């Protein structure tokens, strides 16, 4: 093929920009209409869908939180009955952890990682499309069960034997467990794509020490997903087996053990919260240098702290089980390891503080969220160090002190940077700026609302109010603080509502943003806003950590890729030396059909074990049709 000169396919070297862009657009564009929607493999379109769906789930979860605060505002209130309240708090936890937090961080990765490493599409783009549909169907399954009044009511952690076969009648706990299967398949698929994209599709010259911190964070997150999610899939599958075909994993009378579930769940549970936090560290480390006017201080320290946090996160799951009566020496080990993880977090905070100290911050909304993050996350981290101590934990475990702690580290530690990231990358994703004036109001309302809502919960916890109670007695001294918390949660809700209004309004009426409105230094700002379907006219060549700043604003690029088929560069893992011109698959309807077959298999297997046998056939057929080469130019080599 390559040898024959005459019919040599047009390479991008001998084309001027306008013709090149038109030709690349024709090859990489996604057609509009039904076919485009269900068959697209463009990582940007799928990431935008992921983000929109995750934020819809965030707002639905927020409404649940308001319902809980309404019921807890007065002692012995009768707004919501115990059964419905248990469903609401389970849905709030499950929805926020599995349908919002992990998917939104992965959506940011799907959108930004290919752009920041300088490639044209994510690795395995059809798998990416498949993962979105499976995630969406999982979310629909859970929320349909809530609408049908059969939502899971056993808590987002579903401790056995309450979630077990005897004490959880009906299919509620099975719906929870199967929703886990949906979201884990989607999360694992995205994690594999990110790992392969970062390892093999980096721009030539982007050696390991030139990878942006956000991409490092997403890589560490992906490895956490790969190593932690199998634990929850094994746990949720064995729970369904116990409930459906009578296996005895969690039956203490037949050799099983109730603590086996807690070990399996929290072995996944703690890395899960680091899966949510580590991308936030990457976002803060990317936003801060742009508004401080100097590069990030301690790049090596930050990246090694990221990796250390990832590794350590597997060694401290037992701090969720300090009060189940484990031998004391075991608990002490986990106190030490839980305290030790405060060190990498500390190092990260100190590097940010040093960067801030040596620079002149410009107070745009993203920076406000970063400052709010630092103030809130340090307090959350400190309460984390407190609950890592076994004796301290025996007084505050499963009380509102812990509720305050994890909202500080999750909302403060991950949602604040996420909101900052939305304000920071919204121009790149939608081509228009979000409004600064509204942004300040959003930050002010959310920051004040958050602290007024969640800080008093520390005191409620120390005053003895347990978690997950649908009501409390009038003679206990909690009524005043609970009413205060319920009222201030309205401020927080207004903040998020204003954020939604700002995001929707700016979609059409925001100030048009150029390709680099903030003057940032990473590769995604080298493309137009929003980037074209093929991202880069020619694959960039990187020679430093800040490609847009060196050789005075001129982008060094590589040429020689064909324009009549979807091609991108494969580079070596360590030094990013070019190795081959791999093709990137075109649009395909099969991922969507395979995801429907998978969803049918999963939902059917809630009701009958034979679903796994018969349901697997359509899935296999869809996967074979997906894999079978279609004779398109991408398949020849």
């Amino acid at each position, binding site marked *: 093929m390559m040898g024959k000169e005459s019919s040599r396919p047009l390479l991008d070297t001998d084309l001027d920009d306008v013709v090149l862009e038109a030709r690349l657009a024709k090859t990489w564009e996604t057609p509009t209409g039904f076919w485009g929607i269900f068959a697209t493999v463009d990582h940007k379109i799928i990431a935008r869908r992921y983000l929109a769906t995750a934020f819809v789930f965030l707002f639905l979860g927020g409404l649940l939180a308001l319902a809980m605060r309404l019921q807890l505002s007065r002692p012995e209130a009768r707004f919501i009955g115990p059964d419905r309240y248990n469903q609401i708090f389970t849905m709030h936890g499950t929805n926020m952890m599995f349908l919002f937090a992990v998917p939104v961080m992965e959506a940011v990765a799907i959108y930004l990682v290919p752009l920041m490493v300088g490639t044209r599409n994510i690795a395995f783009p059809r798998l990416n499309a498949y993962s979105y549909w499976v995630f969406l169907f999982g979310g629909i399954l859970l929320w349909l069960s809530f609408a049908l009044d059969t939502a899971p009511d056993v808590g987002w952690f579903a401790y056995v034997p309450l979630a077990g076969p005897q004490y959880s009648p009906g299919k509620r706990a099975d719906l929870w467990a199967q929703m886990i299967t949906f979201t884990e398949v989607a999360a694992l698929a995205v994690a*594999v794509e990110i790992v392969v994209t970062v390892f*093999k599709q980096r721009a030539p010259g982007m050696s390991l020490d030139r990878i942006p911190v956000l991409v490092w964070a997403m890589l560490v997150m992906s490895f956490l997903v790969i190593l932690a999610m199998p634990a929850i899939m094994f746990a949720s599958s064995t729970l369904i087996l116990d409930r459906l*075909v009578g296996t005895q994993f969690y039956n203490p009378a037949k050799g*099983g053990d109730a603590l086996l579930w807690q070990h*399996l769940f929290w072995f996944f549970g703690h890395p899960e919260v680091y899966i949510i936090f580590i991308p936030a560290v990457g976002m803060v480390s990317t936003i801060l240098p742009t508004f401080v006017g100097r590069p990030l201080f301690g790049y090596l320290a930050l990246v090694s702290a990221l990796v250390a946090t990832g590794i350590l996160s597997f060694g401290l799951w037992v701090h969720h089980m300090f009060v189940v009566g484990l031998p004391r020496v075991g608990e002490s080990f986990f106190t030490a390891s839980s305290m030790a993880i405060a060190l990498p977090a500390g190092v990260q905070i100190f590097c940010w503080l040093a960067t801030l100290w040596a620079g002149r911050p410009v107070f745009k909304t993203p920076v406000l969220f970063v400052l709010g993050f630092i103030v809130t996350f340090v307090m959350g981290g400190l309460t984390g160090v407190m609950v890592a101590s076994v004796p301290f934990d025996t007084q505050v475990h499963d009380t509102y002190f812990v509720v305050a702690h994890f909202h500080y580290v999750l909302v403060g530690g991950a949602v604040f940077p996420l909101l900052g990231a939305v304000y920071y990358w919204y121009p790149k994703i939608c081509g228009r700026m979000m409004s600064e004036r509204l942004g300040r109001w959003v930050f002010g309302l959310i920051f004040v609302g958050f602290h007024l809502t969640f800080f008093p919960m520390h005191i409620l916890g120390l005053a003895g109010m347990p978690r997950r109670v649908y009501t409390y007695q009038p003679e206990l001294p909690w009524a005043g603080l609970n009413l205060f918390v319920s009222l201030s949660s309205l401020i927080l809700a207004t903040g998020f509502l204003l954020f939604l209004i700002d995001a929707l309004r700016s979609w059409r009426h925001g100030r048009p943003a150029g390709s680099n409105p903030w003057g940032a230094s990473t590769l995604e700002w080298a493309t137009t806003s929003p980037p074209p379907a093929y991202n880069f006219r020619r694959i960039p*060549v990187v020679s430093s950590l800040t490609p847009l700043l060196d050789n005075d604003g*001129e982008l060094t690029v*590589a040429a020689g890729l064909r324009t009549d088929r979807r091609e991108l560069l494969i580079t070596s893992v360590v030094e990013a030396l070019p190795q081959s011109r791999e093709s990137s698959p075109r649009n395909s309807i099969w991922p969507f059909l395979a995801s429907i077959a998978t969803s049918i298999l999963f939902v059917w297997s809630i009701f009958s074990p034979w679903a796994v046998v018969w349901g697997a056939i359509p899935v296999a057929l869809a996967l*074979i049709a997906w894999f079978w080469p279609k004779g398109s130019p991408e398949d020849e*080599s």
Partner: protein
Amino acid sequence: MKERIVLETSRLPLHAMGMASPTWWGTCAFMLIEGSGFALAIAVYLYLMSLAPHWPIGAPPPDLWAGTWLTVVLVISVIPNVLVSRWAESRRLRRVQIGLLVMIVFGIAPLVFRAFEFMALHINWDKNAYGSIVWVLLGLHTTHILTDLVDTIVLTCLMFSRHGDNTRRYGDVQDNSLYWNFVVLTWLPIYACIYWVPRL
């Protein structure tokens, strides 16, 4: 932004094999997922054993012959598997086709022994925790063999089709043989766990 071409890549191959191909890394990532899943299943087996006063609960240790024969067949299957990979490396279509047919046979043979293995356990999955974990371990590995058998069958049809003689397809054959080696590799600790740990 203005661009300056500093690198010429038109000479690069359209598909590089082995460590340079993204599908190789994708297969490794999925092997890491399934590997950690199997490691967890074995850890659960040992955890349940540590709790039980005597192990296995209410059943004799499984008979050895079915499991051992299966292990032998699996270990032997590694030889043709490596050969197919090497032939794919050197793009010899005819040999790869024959090799894949042999691998299909080596994929079906273990399933026959596996049927006997389930009977050799002398326990049902719903009898007690030992029965449950042993059935799940065997079930997981059976699905592992089945999925790779289906992969091999599809690849064989592909190599006999017009799309066969193509570097990417040889890359797929290599990835599939890499995955089969992983299937055999994961069976060894499970075999030791199910058959020999109760006899210690």
